[in-house]
């Protein structure tokens, strides 16, 4: 029963001493023990540390301290460094890596008293859209265990959907929070680039990576984002802007809100999927919003742009894995070059090697201008399209994904088809914009996501719009069968 409560409700019960954090933590640990073997959503369980942290949270409550996350359990994506706990990034390369410090996101949530239960499975180095590239095997979607949960934060999404924790952290480089949130029927928030610190987050593509949250409602996500967001001098691209009170504006009326319907997001979209978005728009109009059609003419270029920029940055970032300072080292290297090439060849999986090679190619002499520089220019065109759209509308709306969850194994052998899963999510990353996915109905009994995209630093408005929608609907309250 405890796993059905919102973070707000759990906080009230903890505050009223009706339950303790130790009790709550034991409840979720027992659920993980029972349900995770099917899902493979968690790859490291930190039960002892969790119970110790829960005891500490209870002591802080007993001493009179309050706080919305004090004593609330969570699961961290295994991309965040956690002091003294293995941080594998879903890779053989880091299978033996014990982080020597906490990521800022981890440290902030810890300081606010949130209790880490364990680390979530993910696509290797966050490169994937199905959680099938993990060294630890695929994550199963709790709505149908023959289907993928999406990726790369697939473990965080599946764990949140299966109520293995009230919330989980994730990262979103090209859709890795919003896409799995959509495919598992939970609420996922990708903040503005620079809003949440990247310090201690294993880097994939540094101009695109952003940390965010999975929760079962926008109201819960607001509480978590409040803790995560804010300036961090240890991240050189962290933005020094004040963080508004996200919960304070959740109930703000939507009268007069202008919502832009993204025309390009409906090109070729299956009628049943489009109908769900139009149903959502009806609800927004009932809530007082007006809708206008907007166009992002360069959006069709976003996937090829991303698949130049992201691999280029990845090839540079992942050059740090050399078999010398940390991570996997091959057996009996015959010389230094052999040590480098075999440690990397054996330590990285197929998709990661493919991205490193794509990036190496587009940055190599003779190809830099045609690919990397060209992609950076098209990135500006796409960003300008968004800027123009925000002159017509306060928020943009569309589907999060073209289809519901697909079968495990269906797309893994065809990288370009897999990449097209991110066609609706990549634009926000290229432009650094915040985005949110929330459940809006079902296709073939599988959840679909509604995506909201706002201008830079509009997280409060996105959460407000999502919260009002969730007050008028109950998609977000539905649990997959067997996980109620």
């Amino acid at each position, binding site marked *: 029963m405890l796993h059905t409560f919102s973070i707000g409700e759990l906080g009230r019960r903890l505050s009223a001493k009706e339950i303790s954090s130790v009790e709550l933590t034991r409840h979720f640990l027992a659920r993980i023990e029972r349900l995770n073997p099917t899902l493979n959503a968690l790859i490291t369980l930190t039960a002892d540390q969790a119970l110790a942290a829960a005891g500490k949270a209870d002591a802080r409550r007993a001493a009179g301290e309050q706080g919305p996350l004090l004593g609330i359990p969570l699961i961290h994506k295994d991309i965040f460094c956690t002091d003294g706990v293995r941080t594998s990034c879903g890779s053989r390369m880091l299978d033996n890596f014990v982080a*020597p410090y906490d990521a800022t996101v981890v440290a902030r949530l810890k300081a606010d008293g949130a209790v880490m239960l364990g680390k979530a499975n993910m696509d290797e180095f966050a490169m994937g859209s199905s959680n099938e590239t993990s060294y630890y095997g695929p994550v199963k979607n709790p709505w149908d265990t023959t289907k993928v949960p999406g990726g790369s934060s697939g473990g965080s999404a599946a764990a949140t959907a299966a109520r293995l924790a009230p919330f989980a952290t994730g990262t979103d480089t090209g859709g890795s929070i919003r896409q799995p949130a959509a495919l598992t029927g939970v609420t996922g928030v990708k903040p503005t680039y620079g809003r949440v610190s990247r310090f201690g987050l294993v880097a994939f593509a540094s101009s*695109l990576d952003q940390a965010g949250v999975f929760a079962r409602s926008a109201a819960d996500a607001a509480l978590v984002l409040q803790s995560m967001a804010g300036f961090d*001098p240890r991240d050189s691209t962290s933005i020094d802007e004040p963080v508004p009170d996200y919960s304070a504006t959740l109930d703000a009326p939507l009268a007069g809100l202008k919502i832009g319907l993204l025309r390009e997001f409906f090109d070729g979209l299956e009628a049943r999927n489009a109908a769900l978005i139009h149903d959502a728009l009806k609800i927004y109009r009932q809530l007082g919003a007006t809708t206008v059609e907007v166009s992002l003419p360069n959006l069709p270029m976003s996937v090829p742009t991303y*698949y130049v920029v992201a691999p280029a940055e990845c090839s540079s970032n992942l050059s740090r894995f050399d078999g010398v300072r940390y991570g996997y080292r091959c057996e009996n290297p015959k010389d230094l070059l052999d040590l480098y*090439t075999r440690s*990397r060849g054996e330590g*990285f999986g197929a998709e990661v090697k493919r991205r490193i090679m794509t990036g190496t190619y587009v940055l190599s002499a003779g190809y830099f201008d045609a*690919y990397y520089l060209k992609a*950076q220019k098209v990135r500006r065109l796409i960003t300008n399209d968004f800027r123009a759209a925000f002159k017509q509308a306060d928020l943009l709306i569309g589907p999060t994904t073209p289809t519901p969850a697909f079968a495990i194994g269906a797309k893994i052998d065809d990288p370009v088809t897999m990449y097209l899963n991110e066609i609706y999510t990549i634009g926000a990353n290229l432009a650094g914009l915040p985005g949110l996915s929330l459940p809006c109905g079902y296709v073939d009994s599988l959840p679909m996501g509604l995506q909201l995209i706002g201008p830079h630093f509009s997280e409060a408005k996105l959460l407000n719009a999502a919260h009002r929608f969730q007050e008028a609907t109950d998609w977000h309250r539905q649990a997959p069968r067997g996980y109620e």
Partner: protein
Amino acid sequence: MSLTRQDVEKIARLARLSITDAEMPVYVTSLSSIVNFVDELARAQTDHVEPMAHPLDGQHQRLRADVVSESDHHEKYQANAPAVQAGLYVVPRVIE
């Protein structure tokens, strides 16, 4: 544009990745399809467009005071290293 086996071998060498003979044909095919896919960018009209490296305009690299901000953690950090001797990382002999 299609990549040849020689192209992929060169890229792998630049990227310091050993690719086995069994893996090679898969990479030749998949990297060719990715390059074909991103070749679509050539169609975009980008004359007089400034390349964009940072998603937020007007951000500058911050500077901080030039003072020591970290303490010595080398033992903790080197606990993750495959081979360490006397506080140094051990690699195969480079100079005979």
